[in-house]
Each structure stands twice: as C-alpha cells, then as structure tokens.
C-alpha cells in the first residue's frame, strides 16, 4: 500500500473527527424521552453492562442522560460561537476600516471584555436576561468574540496595507469592492478556524454556568446540570454520576479543539511542505 503523506493523514483525521462529532450529536438528539425515564427500582446503580455509566438518584440511565446533556450543551455551543464569530468578523472589520476613533473605542471594549473574567460576565448577562436559554446564549455569545475580532482586525489592517490593495484603489475600485474581492477571501479560513476553536470554550462556559445554577433550568438537562446534581451524592460514595459525564465533556471538548488545530494545518499554506 502506498504510504500516506502528512497532508492526507491530517485531512483523513479531520474528516474522521467531524464524522464522530456529528454522529455523537445526531445519536443524542434521536434518543427518545423514554430512555431517560425515571425508575425508582433502578435508582443509584453503579456502572454495569446494562447501565455502563450507572444510574442516578431517580434511576435514570446516566449514559443516555449524558448523551442528551451533551446534545443540549453542544447546541448552545454551536449557536453561541456561531453568533460570536459573525460578531467578531463585523467588529474586526469595523475596527480596521473605520476611523481612528472607532478603532480606539472597539479596542477599548475588547480590552474591557477580555479583562473581566468570562464566567463572571456571563453570569451577570444571563442573570440580567432572566437566566434560561436566552440569557445563557447571549452571555456566551457576547463574551467569546474578542480574540477572533482582534485577529481579524490585525489581518485586515495588514491586508489593507498591501500593495495590491493600493493598486486596486488606483484602478478605480471602491472600498466595498475591495472588501469583497480582496479582503474577504483571506478572512474565510480565519473565520472557520476561529469558529471551531471558539466552540470548546463556549461548551465549557455553558457547562460551568449551568453547573453553578445560573444557566439552564433543571428541566433542560444540560451536562452542567447533571454534574451539579451529582455533587449532592458524591459524599455518599456515588462517584459515577460525576466521573462519566465529566469525562465525556472533556473528551468532546478535546476532540473539537484538535479538530480546530488540524483544520488550521490543512488551511495554512506555510505548513504545507514536508
């Protein structure tokens, strides 16, 4: 068999990771409610073949609950980081192409948002908007755009000083035309990598806010809620409701993080030759 070269390997790995993540999510969404019904006969069972992750105090299967919980968290993560990344592009471009004052104000806001610990800020926003899904989404979306916005601002500033952009202007092209034809094609890869790398942060923040009780309500069993509930029983020696859902969260987050890194390697032309 022909030996695979590095770019092929990275690409295959990236595709495999994407497939795993999508399959995980699709499976979780399709689980019927009956699979997580409570059953007092089965309460507090340790891990077994029948219930690999064990059951919780209400007798619900923890494997199925973990799947469902991850699906909720991932939905929040996708939507929030999507909004955040789009926000980042607009803000980044505005800072780079606007007047000096606009740039100064935006840079000041970025410093401000980055200066306050995200957890605190998300709690405040979530609380102000009446907690629940809406508050959480807005909170996570409003805090994660900063570093990508800064990256895009830098990229646009650097692109705008390129000779080919100056030439384009002297050939009579308008700023809008230059933005669409010269600048945006360079920003697309930045946007996607930024989006994917923002996703694990968003999930972790969602989980920790829900864990602390400022995020999703208990009726929406996100992974943070499951972990928060598990705390009540951990002193009684019930370790499984904390360990397995926690590990799953870490695994998914790591997987997405590696996916982002791989994606960056595939896209980055300077990484191309061996």
């Amino acid at each position, binding site marked *: 068999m022909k030996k695979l*070269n590095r*770019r*092929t390997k990275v*690409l295959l790995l990236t595709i495999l990771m994407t497939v795993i993540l999508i399959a995980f999510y699709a499976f979780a969404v399709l689980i019927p409610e009956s699979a997580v019904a409570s059953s007092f006969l089965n309460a507090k069972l340790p891990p077994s073949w029948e219930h690999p992750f064990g059951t919780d105090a209400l007798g619900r299967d923890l494997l199925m609950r973990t799947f469902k919980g991850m699906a909720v968290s991932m939905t929040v993560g996708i939507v929030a980081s999507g909004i955040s990344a789009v926000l980042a592009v607009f803000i980044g471009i505005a800072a780079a192409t606007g007047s000096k004052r606009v740039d100064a104000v935006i840079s000041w806001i970025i410093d401000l948002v980055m200066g306050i610990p995200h957890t605190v800020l998300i709690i405040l926003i979530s609380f102000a908007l009446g907690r629940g899904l809406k508050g959480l989404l807005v909170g996570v979306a409003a805090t994660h755009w900063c570093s990508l916005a800064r990256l895009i601002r830098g990229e646009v500033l650097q692109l705008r000083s390129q000779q080919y952009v100056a030439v384009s202007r002297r050939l009579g092209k308008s700023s809008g035309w230059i933005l669409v034809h010269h600048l945006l094609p360079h920003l697309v890869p930045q946007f996607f990598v930024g989006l994917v790398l923002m996703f694990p942060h968003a999930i972790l923040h969602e989980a920790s806010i829900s864990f602390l009780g400022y995020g999703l309500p208990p009726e929406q069993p996100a992974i943070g809620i499951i972990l928060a509930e598990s705390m009540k029983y951990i002193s009684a020696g019930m370790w499984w409701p904390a360990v397995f859902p926690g590990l799953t969260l870490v695994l998914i987050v790591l997987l997405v993080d590696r996916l982002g890194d791989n994606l960056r390697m595939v896209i980055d032309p300077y990484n*191309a*030759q*061996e």
Partner: protein
Amino acid sequence: MKQKNETLLEIHDLSVSFRMYDGGLEQKELQVISDLHLTVRPGEIVAVAGSSGSGKSLLASAILGILPSNATVRGHLHYKGQQLTPEIQSRLRGREIALVPQSVAFLDPLMKVGKQVDGHKKPYPTEKRRGLFKRFALPEKTESLYPFQLSGGMARRVLVSTALISDAELIIADEPTPGMSLDQALEALQMFREMADAGKAVILITHDIDLAFEFADRVAVFYAGTTVETAPAADFRKGADALRHPYSKALWRALPQNGFQPIDGFQPYAGELPKGCLFAPRCPHATEECRCQIPPIRETGDGEVRCFHAS
C-alpha cells in the same frame, strides 16, 4: 591573478529535486537543478549568472548542506577531492566554507554586531575582527551596535566580515549587490577580488551580470537549473561572438548597453522541462537532435558548453 590547477570544489551531474504537493493531496517530485556542472579553483572568483528560477541560490544551499528536508540531492559534490556528505558539510560550514548572506535579515536582531561576527570560536577572535572592521572602514563603535542600527552599506561590510573571519577557503556570496548604489557595489566586489587574490575561492551568485564580467575570472551561466556555459569573464567582455552558448549570447545582447535585444519565450518551469536541450524551444539554431536529446557538457577552448552546435 594567480591560478593554480588543483580544484577546490568540483560539482558534476548535480540534481536537486523537491517533494511538493501538487494542488490537492498528490505529491510529486519537482526537479529544480539537473546535471549541473561547476568547478572552482583557489584564487579565483567564479560568477554564477542566470535568471531567477535558474537554480543559483539553491546551489549555495546544496553546497552548504542547508536545503530544506523535502529536498533530494544526487550527483557529485567534491570538496578538496572528498565527497561532501551531510556530516562533512556541517563540519565545514562556517569554518572552511562560508556564506555571505543576502541581507541583514540573516543576522540575529538581538545580538551586538561584534559578538555575532566573532561567532562561537574560542578564544574570541576579537583582535582579528577589529582588524577587519578597520580595513573595511567601519568605525570602532560598530561592534557594539545592533543590526538595525547599521546603514545598508555598513551591513554589507559586516556580512562580508562574518565570512572573512572564519579563514574560510571557499566563500559563497549570494546576490551581494542588489539595492546598493554603483559605488557600494563596486566596493563590495573589490573586497571579493582582494579575497580571491589572497588565495581564497569565491562563488559570486548574481544577476547583475555586467558587474560580474568586470570582477570575476570565470562566469558560469545557468539556465533552468543547469549550466549551459562556463567561460572566462574576458570572453563576456569581448562580446557575443566570443561566447559559445546561444543563451549566453542572448544574455549579452539583451544588456541595455549592448543592443537591448530580447529573445522570445520564457525559461521553462520545473516539472515542465522540455525533453531535450532545455534551451531548445527558444533557440534559433535548434535541430531535431536538440529537441530529443540533452546535449552533454563539453570543453571548447578555455570554457565548457552544453550545446551540440557550439564551436
């Protein structure tokens, strides 16, 4: 000009290829240098002339053994009669074979110039370096400056000093003159001339070919990664009729002071090289033989040429 007969560096049938990604996921071998010949003797300046993409700078990297890891080198690279292997190259690099790099970008921006010129040799050759700086009319305080504080001309002289302090017997100067005024360029080339007269060998990689004609002993003309002609520089000063290869003649005729007459076409790209003589598609004298077969390099007069029809 003293010329000894023993050769210091002898290169023949040198090929360099790179493994590259070809658009998508497929990799292919790109041959960028093919069947290259070059000999360098002590006491002479050999100018390497050719357009960009002719393999000039890659030759320097191949001699020093600093090609990127996706490169493959084949052929004979002999230094003092010994085949150059990666181990020998790393031993000779900076000691017997020195590079005069293209720009200050090759200096460490955070290290004072004097210390960088001294290098890793112990005890530090401080006295010798001061002597060199004095010869090059660099003020004494230069040694405590950082690279960014140097003017273009000073930087050039500092770079040459880094090569000279090593007692190297072979000095490779990669495009030392672009961006310099004529006076500065002449001064830099004069320094190489003096180094050669002191018994060292100099490879001068350049595309300012009219300057090379003035200062070199021999000129090697590269085209699409191969040597098409090596001739005494005097022949280039005489004119197109004294030259052997049609490409060398074309170079001479294209100079603004000699007619400004271009030939048509362009240098072929690596990966799209013609089957026979690499110059055949642009050559006015090309025959069927030229299109099918690569002409061997052969000696004519006191030069070498790679052409079936050259006299």
